């Protein structure tokens, strides 16, 4: 250490070095944070794609990145948008929630994306939400979620709880004569809220408290032996029992394998899942799961012209005849087409103009109808209930007669039962209390 004893001149030298280093660092940070150097949308409109390509959520989100790239490519083949080419900007938030916020900021302020399509988990959406609101940009969120949110800057193209859970329970009650319910979920906010809503709903339908069992497990839970056994036991009380599963992603495979092995057949105790789609089933041997259910707004097996074309394009784009499609992909399909229409209607990609133009936009969905963007920034959807087939596909066994409008604020939660969201002028409020006539949150002029 004695060699390095500082002297005045050295200090001066050091300072000089500091100044130089500072400038260099600023330059480096600036250069590095703008990989494409953001040449202010010369001939292109940039579209942010914010899906995890690594980490725990890559398993679900990678597909959505691919589908966005496909949609952008197709739109460009049709001549782009407003006479400009679209360019997808892919980043990897790596299943890391603070990184989502950072990447969102990068997409908006560095890459100048006109809109961003992304997020899967609620926490990732919650993480980026303040960023989108602060920088007044647009996010399309494609996954079914717990509701209780209505941001001006987010368009929710996935299902709200009433667009998935309630019709599924209704189906089981009427068609399956189910009297006893197990609400099993991963311990996070979506299952908690959904189960809270379902519990209130079931009780309103006369189901006794002792006929409802609620169980939460951690993320990635892999040993389901005694939970499945306790479900079996709960189901042996002489009343028809069903499981409503809000078990998340990774934990599903071991859960279903255990169900199959303990011999719980759909005809004994059906399981209806809200987070299990074709993508998840691709990783499971579905033969023992025949007849277990899922509720979504889209199934790959839906027999329509649009869907067939979409699947064909998808397989061609991924060059993989085995790739499946699923509900969140359809949500991006709808969301992207809505955004294209909204931008065309507004004649600009300016956020405010597009946000106003989006409401009322209606585009074909893949199940043979039209979905429309409602004033609460959620879309109308049909609800399909399907049974798992031996080939890993769903067989639709029930479909709501019309489109269901999303309830962004749950009528079953005390604090939100009087709230509505309406982003049209003049109300422009994400949480308007119809009783008090005030806007409690999310007001933006």
């Amino acid at each position, binding site marked *: *250490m004695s060699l*390095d*004893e*500082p002297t005045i001149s*050295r*200090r001066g030298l*050091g300072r000089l070095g*500091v*100044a130089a*280093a*500072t*400038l260099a*660092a*600023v330059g*480096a*940070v600036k250069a*590095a*944070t703008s*990989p494409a150097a953001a040449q202010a949308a010369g001939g292109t409109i940039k579209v942010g794609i914010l899906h995890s*390509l*690594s980490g725990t959520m890559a398993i679900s989100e990678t597909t959505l990145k691919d589908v966005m790239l496909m949609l952008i490519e197709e739109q460009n083949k049709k001549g782009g948008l407003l006479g400009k080419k679209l360019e997808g900007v*892919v*980043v*990897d*938030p*790596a299943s890391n*929630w*603070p990184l989502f*916020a*950072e*990447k969102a*900021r*990068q997409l908006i*302020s*560095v890459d100048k994306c006109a809109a961003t399509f992304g997020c899967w*988990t609620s*926490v990732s959406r*919650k*993480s980026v*939400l*303040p*960023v989108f609101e*602060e920088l007044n940009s647009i996010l399309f969120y494609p996954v079914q979620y717990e509701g*209780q*949110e209505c941001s001006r800057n987010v368009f929710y193209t996935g299902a709200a709880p009433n667009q998935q859970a309630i019709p599924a329970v209704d189906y089981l009650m009427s068609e399956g004569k189910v009297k006893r319910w197990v609400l099993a979920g991963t*311990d*996070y*906010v979506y299952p*908690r*809220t959904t189960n809270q809503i379902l519990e209130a709903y079931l009780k309103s339908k006369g189901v006794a408290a002792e006929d409802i069992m609620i169980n*939460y497990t*951690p*993320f990635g839970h892999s040993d389901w032996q005694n939970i499945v056994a306790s479900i079996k036991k709960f189901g042996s009380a002489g009343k028809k029992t069903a499981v409503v599963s809000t078990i998340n992603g990774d934990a599903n495979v071991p859960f279903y394998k255990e169900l199959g092995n303990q011999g719980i057949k759909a005809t004994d105790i059906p399981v209806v899942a809200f987070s299990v789609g074709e993508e998840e089933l691709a990783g499971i041997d579905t033969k023992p799961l025949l007849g277990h259910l899922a509720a979504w707004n889209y199934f790959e097996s839906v027999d329509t012209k649009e869907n067939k074309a979409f699947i064909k394009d998808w397989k061609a784009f991924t060059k993989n005849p085995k790739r499946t499609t699923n509900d969140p992909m359809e949500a991006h399909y709808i969301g992207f087409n809505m955004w294209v229409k909204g931008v065309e209607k507004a004649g600009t990609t300016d956020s405010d103009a597009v946000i106003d133009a989006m409401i009322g936009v209606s585009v074909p969905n893949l199940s043979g109808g039209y979905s429309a963007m409602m004033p609460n920034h959620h879309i109308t959807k049909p609800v399909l209930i399907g049974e798992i087939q031996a080939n890993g596909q769903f067989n639709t066994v029930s479909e709501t007669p019309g489109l269901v409008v999303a309830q962004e604020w749950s009528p079953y*939660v*005390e*604090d939100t039962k009087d709230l509505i969201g309406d982003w049209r002028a003049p109300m422009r409020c994400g*949480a308007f209390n119809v009783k008090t006539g005030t806007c*409690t*949150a*999310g007001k933006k002029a």
Partner: protein
Amino acid sequence: MKLDRISYLTLGFVLGVALVLALLNQMTALGSALHVPTYVLALAGKYLCFAMLALAVDLVWGFAGILSLGHAAFFALGGYAMGMYLMRQIGTRGVYGNPNLPDFMVFLGWKELPWYWYGFDWFGFAMLMAVVVPGLLAAVFGWLAFRSRVTGVYLSIITQALTYALLLAFFRNDMGFGGNNGMTDFKDILGFNVQADSTRSALLVISALLLCGQFLLARFVVASRFGKMLIAVRDTESRTRFLGYRPESYKLVVWVLSAVMAGIGGALYVPQVGIINPSEFAPGNSIEAVIWVAVGGRGTLVGAILGAILVNFGKTWFTGALPEVWLYALGAMFIFVTLFLPRGVMGLFRARTSKEPEPEAPEVAAAHEVTG
């Protein structure tokens, strides 16, 4: 305390960059070529907080030989203390406008504020908790572990168990810390809007100042007779006992100090990234922090800061520029550094000095002497 040139350079660099970024952000117009976007401020602030964590890890690993695979837990606890304060500051501006409860509690049907949330309305109390809670946890854990002479990999593994247990605990919605979603959508800190550029600039400069403060403190500790003893403990713990020292109390002191430093880093991290949730407890995060230190150069405080900034800068860059293959780059970097730069980046600059760790750390020597 005498500082060497590289320390001056580091302090100058950290403070200088933070000040220049903040000033450029504040003083120049939005379109100007010199303007620093908020994005860069947020990034720089995050790096500096990570640097604090790295400094904390280096203090225990580089100087006391305690390889903590759970240091991110202290960081996250500090972050939660700040997060709770920020949640309370939202007041009635939450989605539900509930004056008594944070949004997520309303959402899950809580009726009243749990007792452990009391006091977090006050900034001072929250900041006190940001250092007391990690410090206390470290004290209890360290007292138990060091007293019974748990060392080497055994200690590493139980620190990992600690952070893993906390991860699972904070995931539980019943804990009242927001479960998986954690806390987000913050509004104000001490009355300033957390999203305002001026607040961000201020937070960045404060982070830089605190990092420098921590660096000087760590420097003071390491240069003292205490620090020399730590190095002695690191290399030949049992020998120090025969000199009449109690290595466990030395380790405990530096361990608690380190936890507190990490907690401060976490507390500053939260307002700058805007979210705190249980994934901060993930064991991978702690391992990453160790890697920053290894990349920078274990046992050199400057190296810890440098490593944290370098690796995270790389991560920012790679995830944007090479989203599909960045993990290859990151993984390869770790392998490269351990294989070819055992003394980290600092090893490139410095000749051997007395502060460097011995490559033959004896930690798991025991595991070699074993039969099947």
